[in-house]
């Protein structure tokens, strides 16, 4: 994929021995901690069969190791349900949690797309629990909050999200939700997503998937118009990504039934089970819904990726191949041909300045993988990567699923038992058709993971800590580091630019074809900034006396 720069990379990397780097990163930890972290820091090797070494992932963060991970509530309310515009999301708990998840991810939505124009995303609803409720219980206050929200906004649905104290004091958000659902005649449902559950936001994603599937998916059987009807799962419309993907689908003549959950309405979730294909962007946060829809309604799923122009083209071809319709295939090819013209021009423009530069990505449960595509299109190499909250299958591929040991933390997150719906189960493809597609390399219901696509010898680090981040930068001195705002300013102190891939700083979209061009320009601007040239004052002539900035060597 990056033949262009192969030569340059090899010479630069020779100096750094990843084995030594790993040693240095964990040397200061107590023995037990070091042993644990050693399993989460892996040097990539690709075996003959494409197998990669195992990595420990989705395990508890050790206390006192400053992690970038969030909590269960953050994954449930902040990530999965947050981007849906017409659900009133009430945080049941003290004020902090609601405040901190108040549209901080820069999810966009098009409120005009719904007839009622409802958009509650700019709001932060909280029961603002006080000491009295901690002692005497908060259900009464929660009911009042739901009632008030209903009276003021008349929403179609209200969701309740539990924070840490709720589970501890024994408030039953589910029975409260049921009671209010009956009383108000709208959909009201609760999530037991207390922050201490699971090991990261990943637990919250699972809980959100379960809740949406139980309470919303399949509540409206209306089959809408349009050909090639699909759902897009795990795309959260940060910086307008979903708008670009929607544009491409429309151009290809594909019909989007619903997106979970960028630019989404609860109406879309309600009849998402009428679609014929589920597309998964973020495997980590949403594969549960796809699997449950497959079991209950017979909808197959494909892992796709719209980050990177080549990846977008590949994903569109996969969709067309799934439907196996020549008309669609031709149209997709025409769209790709047209869309790639400006993309290629943009690549030619930036490559002389970006090729050979090195990136690191520590973000998400998919983004650290997806964005490598964009970098390779610019001739840049990813020298180290890792997820914040990914599981082994996100690293090594779904083939390792049977060998993943379920620990106590994961066991506490409910796995719903799903059976085919007696009336509505309708396999969209016969088993032999699926087999045929698989044989053709379509990867139905499969995800290969990040590591098989990365080079040998690169460092894969799960749940990287702030301390390890600092070490990594000190040693590798990459040209750009991709993570989130928490890491941003520490990394930039070293003179290395950081691109936020959670919320895109101020930018985006980066998905699809137009997004790729945006990203090339942004990264070009960042890795070629003149600012670093001014840092050393002219009268500081003896850098050896004061140390050198990370970017200088």
């Amino acid at each position, binding site marked *: 994929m990056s033949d262009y720069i192969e030569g340059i990379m090899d010479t630069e990397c020779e100096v750094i021995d990843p084995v030594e780097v790993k040693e240095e990163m964990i040397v200061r930890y107590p023995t037990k901690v070091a042993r644990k972290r050693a399993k989460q820091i892996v040097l990539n090797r690709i075996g003959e069969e494409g197998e990669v070494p195992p990595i420990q992932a989705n395990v508890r963060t050790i206390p006192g190791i400053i992690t970038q991970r969030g909590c269960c509530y953050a994954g449930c309310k902040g990530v999965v349900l947050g981007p849906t515009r017409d659900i009133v999301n009430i945080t049941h708990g003290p004020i902090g949690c609601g405040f901190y998840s108040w549209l901080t991810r820069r999810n966009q939505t098009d409120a005009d797309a719904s007839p009622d124009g409802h958009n509650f995303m700019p709001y*932060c609803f909280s029961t603002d629990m006080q000491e009295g409720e901690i002692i005497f219980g908060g259900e009464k206050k929660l009911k009042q909050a739901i009632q008030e929200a209903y009276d003021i906004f008349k929403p179609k649905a209200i969701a309740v999200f539990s924070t840490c104290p709720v589970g501890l004091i024994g408030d039953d958000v589910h029975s409260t939700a049921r009671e209010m659902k009956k009383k108000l005649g709208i959909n009201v449902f609760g999530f037991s997503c207390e922050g*201490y559950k699971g090991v990261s936001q990943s637990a919250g994603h699972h809980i959100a998937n379960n809740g949406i599937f139980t309470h919303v998916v399949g509540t409206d059987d209306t089959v809408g118009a349009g050909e090639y009807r699909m759902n897009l799962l795990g795309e959260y419309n940060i910086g307008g990504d979903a708008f670009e993907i929607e544009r491409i689908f429309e151009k290809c003549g594909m019909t989007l039934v619903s997106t979970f959950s960028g630019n989404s309405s609860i109406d879309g979730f309600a009849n998402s089970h009428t679609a014929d294909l589920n597309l998964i962007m973020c495997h980590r946060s949403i594969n549960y819904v796809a699997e449950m829809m497959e079991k209950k309604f017979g909808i197959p799923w494909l892992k796709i990726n719209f980050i990177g122009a080549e990846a977008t083209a590949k994903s569109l071809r996969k969709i067309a191949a799934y439907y196996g319709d020549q008309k669609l295939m031709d149209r997709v090819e025409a769209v790709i041909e047209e869309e790639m013209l400006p993309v290629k021009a943009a690549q030619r423009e930036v490559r002389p300045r970006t090729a050979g530069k090195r990136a690191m990505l520590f973000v998400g449960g998919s983004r650290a993988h997806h964005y490598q595509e964009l970098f390779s299109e610019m001739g840049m190499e990813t020298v180290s990567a890792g997820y914040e909250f990914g599981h082994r299958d996100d690293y090594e591929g779904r083939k390792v699923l049977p060998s993943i040991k379920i620990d106590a933390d994961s066991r506490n997150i409910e796995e719903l038992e799903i059976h085919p719906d007696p009336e509505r189960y309708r396999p969209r493809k016969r088993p032999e058709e699926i087999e045929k597609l698989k044989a053709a390399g379509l990867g139905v219901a499969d995800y290969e993971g990040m590591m098989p696509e990365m080079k040998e010898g690169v460092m894969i680090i799960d749940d990287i800590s702030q301390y390890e981040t600092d070490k990594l930068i000190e040693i590798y001195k990459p040209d750009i580091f991709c993570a989130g705002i*928490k890491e941003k300013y520490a990394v930039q102190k070293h003179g290395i630019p950081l691109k936020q891939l959670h919320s895109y700083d101020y930018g985006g979209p980066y998905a699809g074809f137009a997004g790729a061009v945006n990203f090339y320009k942004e990264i070009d601007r960042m890795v070629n900034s003149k600012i670093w040239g001014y840092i050393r004052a002219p009268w500081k002539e003896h850098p050896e006396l004061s140390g050198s900035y990370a970017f200088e060597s």
Partner: protein
Amino acid sequence: MKRADAKTTAAAAAPVTKGKEKKKGKENYRPTRNACKLCAPLGAALAFKGFSKTIPFLHGSQGCATYIRRYLISHYREPVDIAASNFSEEAAIFGGQKSLLLGLENVCRQYRPEMIGLATTCLSETIGDNVPMFLKEYRKGREDGPPVVHVSTPSYRGTHAEGFHEAVRAVVESLATAPETPSREGINLFPGMVSPADIRHLKEIFKDFETEVTILPDISETLDGHLWSEYIRMPEGGTPIQKIRGSGRARASIEFGRVLSGQKSAGKSLEERARVQCFSLGLPIGVSESDRLFQTLSELTGHRVPERYNAQRERLLDAYVDGHKYVSGARAILYGEEDLVIGLAAFLSEIGITPVLCASGSKSGLLKEKLSQVTPDISKIQVEEGADFSDIEEIAAQSAPDIFIGSSKGYRIARALNLPLVRAGFPIHDRIGGPRIIHLGYQGAQALFDRIANALIEKRQSDSKVGYGYM
């Protein structure tokens, strides 16, 4: 398809049908919409960042540390490391002692901090973890380790402002010792939640008074620092631990905050324990409140007010005179921490702007009384404690304001009403330079005055059809 940002006007989402009537009492509970306060552990973590090589440590879920880091970093644009005991479900049931001890051990090894600021969260508070006992256990065999200062900050009690002050008080109460001899030197300054730029200015002032000052906490460098030429485990700056210990030997303490003056505070605690006299002043914003600071300093140090401050004061008044026609008679909506609101109200009253609404998410019960001390006619001001932005929005819509002054969180309302927002306080995450906004002293008032006057001028200019080049 429209590719605009999420529709931000609240009015577009749904009409607010409720009247202003803020109902009191449980029976008429009203949900909090768009809170005008953050949680207590955030305030505590912020305060701890102002002590030398101190790691804030939250006893609770890792999510709290992550969220709070995220929020502080978006304002300060500086690294903010906050550790946590990373509660698992097991810890939530059986108690967090093991997690806490392991967490402290790991933080010490990685960061070698000079102090650890341990704040509890609603999780550890709800299950009733006995943190003082855990710490006693931790201390055994680690007598030489860094001090661990514990503050109780469940977020169901108080706001970030209370969390901040409580943390400062905990630090002083844990470390400061009462002197045996009455030798008194230097002054302690408890500035409250002000900006790094404010603290740098305060340091200059004390230097010009030729007086040693211990600022508690001092975030001037730790949260507004510079690039690193070598790896820095923890940023330089912050109140040295030795100086915190010595704060009991100071000649006097000065604390800012009229509301704080009516509450428990680090300054008053030191007065009781170490007989360091505490002078409570308002946040020195505007001429009158700054005059009080300079007078107090002059009396305490025996030095005349240095000439440069006379010059600054005169320049400020000259600007007041030159700019009065742009600002006088305007109506402002003020919101934020109570003491910031009071300080800004005092300043606005001087320049002829009526703060028609003074709102805070805190509920000290003192806001109205303290505001009446600094504003000429309290009857013209609607004072709202425990307010959220929905309250502020409703009141603003009915009070014909010209300008909003406060944090970025007021932006949506200001935008809906097509009015300027002059950013002040915390959090500011839609502009660059939040930590460099100066509010205090004559210099701070000068900067605020220029910004407010220019915002009003700009609004008038852009609203005008003529396109005046002279305003």
